[in-house]
């Protein structure tokens, strides 16, 4: 059935594909970490009874979640150089390059999604836990970091990881600003060697293996947490 296909092209291009994969994984990891940190702050802001904090955070989250990721990537790529020129007053100032603008775009985009997950996680911690923490004399900050967030994150780990798996797939969009991730590397070789079917099959297989093992890991993790609960 596969006569006429040349799968050697994959083996020959493995080092280049690996470079792309490192880029994909690195971008995923950095955007995930940044997204979770900023998402946590946004979630705390959204849950604040102080409107000056909750409204802007809510507006930001709703705005970003209503826009396709690819637009956000474009925006940051084209907007940041303009901003830097405006802020520094130097019309010749250089931008921050496609990698950092993509990283910022992904981080800020994912932060909006992580925010909603983390907000739900925080709300899943019973109100009585907050009361108990306060009753012991803990401050808001201590109650949040020592009592609420650890429990919230424990409840959220499965969905946070699931979102991160989707983020990993989404990093393939960086080709729009000229960066080469795993998908981009596969595409370049496919076009160079005229082996589109082989390369795209291989790319799909790799994405499938990584994402499926990720989901499987999430499932076992979920099972383990459910056993230990109460």
């Amino acid at each position: 059935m596969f006569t006429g296909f040349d799968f050697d092209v994959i083996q020959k291009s493995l080092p280049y594909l690996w470079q792309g994969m490192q880029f994909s994984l690195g971008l995923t990891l950095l955007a995930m970490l940044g997204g979770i940190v900023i998402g946590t702050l946004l979630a705390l802001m959204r849950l604040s009874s102080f409107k000056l904090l909750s409204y802007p955070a809510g507006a930001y989250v709703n705005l970003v979640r209503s826009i396709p990721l690819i637009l956000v990537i474009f925006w940051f790529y084209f907007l940041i150089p303009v901003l830097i020129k405006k802020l520094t007053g130097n019309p010749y100032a250089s931008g921050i390059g496609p990698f950092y603008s993509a990283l910022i775009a992904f981080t800020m985009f994912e932060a909006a999604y992580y925010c909603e997950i983390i907000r739900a996680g925080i709300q899943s911690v019973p109100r009585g836990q907050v009361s108990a923490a306060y009753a012991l004399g803990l401050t808001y900050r201590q109650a949040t970091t020592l009592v609420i967030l650890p429990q919230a994150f424990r409840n959220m780990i499965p969905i946070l990881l699931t979102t991160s798996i989707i983020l990993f797939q989404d990093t393939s969009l960086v080709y729009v600003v000229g960066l080469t991730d795993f998908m981009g590397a596969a595409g370049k070789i496919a076009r160079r060697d005229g082996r589109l079917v082989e390369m795209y099959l291989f790319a799909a297989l790799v994405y499938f293996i990584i994402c499926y093992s990720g989901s499987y890991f999430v499932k076992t993790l979920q099972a383990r947490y459910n056993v230990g609960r109460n």
Partner: protein
Amino acid sequence: MIEMKNVSKWYGKFQVLKNCTTRVDKGEVVVVCGPSGSGKSTLIKTVNALEPFQEGEITVEGISVGAPGTDLPKLRSRIGMVFQNFELFPHMKVVDNINLAQIKVLGRSKEEASAKSMSLLKRVGLDGHAQKHPGQLSGGQQQRVAIARGLAMDPIAMLFDEPTSALDPEMINEVLDVMTELAHEGMTMMVVTHEMGFASRVAHRVVFMDAGEIVEDAKKEDFFGKPRSERAQHFLSKILHH
């Protein structure tokens, strides 16, 4: 030690506390009882400002709870509180539950805190369970840990908000025994409970609430002997004869 004067509280238009006035003196055990929805839990939670109130004044050792400048974390750290649903922190071991505020609020060293926690666990009969997580303990055991957690702060008073209501019947006594012992040692206690046996044995005074009002505030003997109000009589006749 705890004084409440004309405390009123509203949820929107609904008034949950109406001009409540009472006091708990040093070494005194005051039981707050009444039908559900009468505002007992809300009342006890105003003492350490877990529930804000709109009118009146509450002072704890002369410090005003409602005043804007009051250092609430500090005030709360001096008053122990035990909740209906225990509210132990499920992600921490039993000993760490008791250590947490000692270290973070009182600034004790880990060793000092652990030593205190272990001696308190021994006192409530749970020293073998220090390394377990709360989820591995029975309700009665969890509530005794919660009492130890409150005592670890060397509180000037303890508040109990229906400490046995969420327990299976066979576990109620192990918790009440700890509380009785505490009362006999002279701890100042305010206890919201339906356990009238406990009230008649241990309390000095009984406060009876109905519909957000303190209807009766009497010495134990007077309350159980000859409650003056019809509502208290009605409540007692329902709760004592079954």
